């Protein structure tokens, strides 16, 4: 007699539906945006390049400002036994809705201190978002480095700092790269914290100034998708979506390759572990 597989069938059907919906999301972005994608890289109303540059500029600056201190804070907690409250606050802040960061910085910078809606204000917002994430997500990665390795290094007379630089960070590096990449992807797709800090406009003429208006690709997709009256608004929003999607994919892809490379390198170290004469 054939066995019945009711549960398996239900689960497979639901899983296929779920997967199909996710693929449809990506598919629709590509299908709708494709006709306007070319126009996104020529001068005109559909030009995406100012927003693309703003995204690179602001996310890049925010990463430079947030990754090193976030990592140091995580190391302070795992290597120097900083109080637990540091970890708790970082993980709470990293799950805080980004719109509240937008609200706080809008009140503080724009309304009170008179900053313009600018790249600078956007960079502050993105840094405030990524700092707790970098701290909270790095801590478990650093904890996975074996305690015996640290003790071996310390027993050989290395200082805590030398142990961190020569043992802990190199071994945790693949995981840290993944944490930084997910953080960067979060920033690239962020809009709620930027709407009233970086603003909704991009500079008409190319500029390096941090005081130039700082609309990103995500902001553009939101604005054009919901408010634009341009006849091709739908396709223009889709084009911004395609670029945003590609941006995220490339970011995660590069991080994945880097991670595999680092892991392979670490693997060689693991292979020779405990062998004398190397």
């Amino acid at each position: 007699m054939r066995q019945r597989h009711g549960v398996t069938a239900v689960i497979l059907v639901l899983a296929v539906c779920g997967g199909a919906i996710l693929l449809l999301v990506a598919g629709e972005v590509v299908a709708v945006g494709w006709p306007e994608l070319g126009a996104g890289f020529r001068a005109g109303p559909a030009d995406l390049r100012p927003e693309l540059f703003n995204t690179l500029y602001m996310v890049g600056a925010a990463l430079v400002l947030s990754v090193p201190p976030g990592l140091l804070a995580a190391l302070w907690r795992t290597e120097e036994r900083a109080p637990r409250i540091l970890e708790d606050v970082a993980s709470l802040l990293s799950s805080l809705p980004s719109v509240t960061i937008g609200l706080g910085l809008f009140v503080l910078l724009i309304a009170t201190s008179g900053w313009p809606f600018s790249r600078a204000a956007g960079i502050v917002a993105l840094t405030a978002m990524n700092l707790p994430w970098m701290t909270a997500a790095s801590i478990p990665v650093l904890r996975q480095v074996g305690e015996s390795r640290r003790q071996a290094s310390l027993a050989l007379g290395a200082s805590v700092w030398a142990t961190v630089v020569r043992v802990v960070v190199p071994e945790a590096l693949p995981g840290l790269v993944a944490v930084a990449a997910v953080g960067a992807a979060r920033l690239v797709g962020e809009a709620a914290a930027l709407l009233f800090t970086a603003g909704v406009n991009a500079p008409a003429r190319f500029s390096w100034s941090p005081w130039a208006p700082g609309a990103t690709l995500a902001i553009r997709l939101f604005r054009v998708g919901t408010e634009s009256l341009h006849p091709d608004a739908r396709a223009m929003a889709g084009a911004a979506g395609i670029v945003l999607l590609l941006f995220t994919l490339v970011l995660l892809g590069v991080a994945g390759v880097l991670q595999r490379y680092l892991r392979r390198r670490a693997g060689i170290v693991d292979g020779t572990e405990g062998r004398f004469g190397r």
Partner: protein
Amino acid sequence: MAVLSRYGLEPVLLGRVFEPARGRFGLIPFIWGSVVVGLMALVVAVLFGVSLALAVGRRVPERLRGALGRGLSIFVALPSVILGWWGLETVVPLVRQVFGGPGFSLLAAGLTLGVMITPTLAALSLAAVEGVPRLLEEASDALGAHPDQTLLGLTLPAALPGIARAVVLAASRALAETMAVQMVIGSQPVARLALNLPGSTLTTGILVNMAVWPPGSPAGQSLTVMAALLLVGAWWLSRQLTDRSDPA
């Protein structure tokens, strides 16, 4: 916070009308919206996410598993504005056709958000399912259990603590999400039972009103109260996480 002392804790936190121009700052419409939209999103995400985790973890050929798992993790990082835009293009017209109303609704927000947090829930649950020892499942099979019995009676319960963690993390993403909700919810600060009509959540309420009311005015301060409520919600959810893992 002065809005609380001036207008009283109760009328603000339990007031059903949000009309700042008339001095009424009831936040119930936003709280209601956040709770209802979040719960709908969780139902959608648990249904699809747990199924995806079980299917990919235990019912899909071994060589496909790695690729499917990686695919899921890519969708975790999908920018939420893209989901919001898709909701605007697809979910809103669908809700309008099937359930009537303007389409922009609590229901559309719940469905869009559910799709958004599905990859998060699925990827984390998949890790939990893959962590269930094969040996236990083989023992169950050897005792004559039907594959479905093993899956429901052993794999699922054994993975449940991990799946519960995944659900809490997905819920905190749902609570925090602003853009994807704002694009499809219709943005009316009214508490309604009808799910096919527009509403508002704590996050979208902050976004919409932020640049309208001057900071420091009672309306501006009521936004700070909303932010504080979100902070409490995020804190409560993160507590659920630490309680389930070991206390160290």
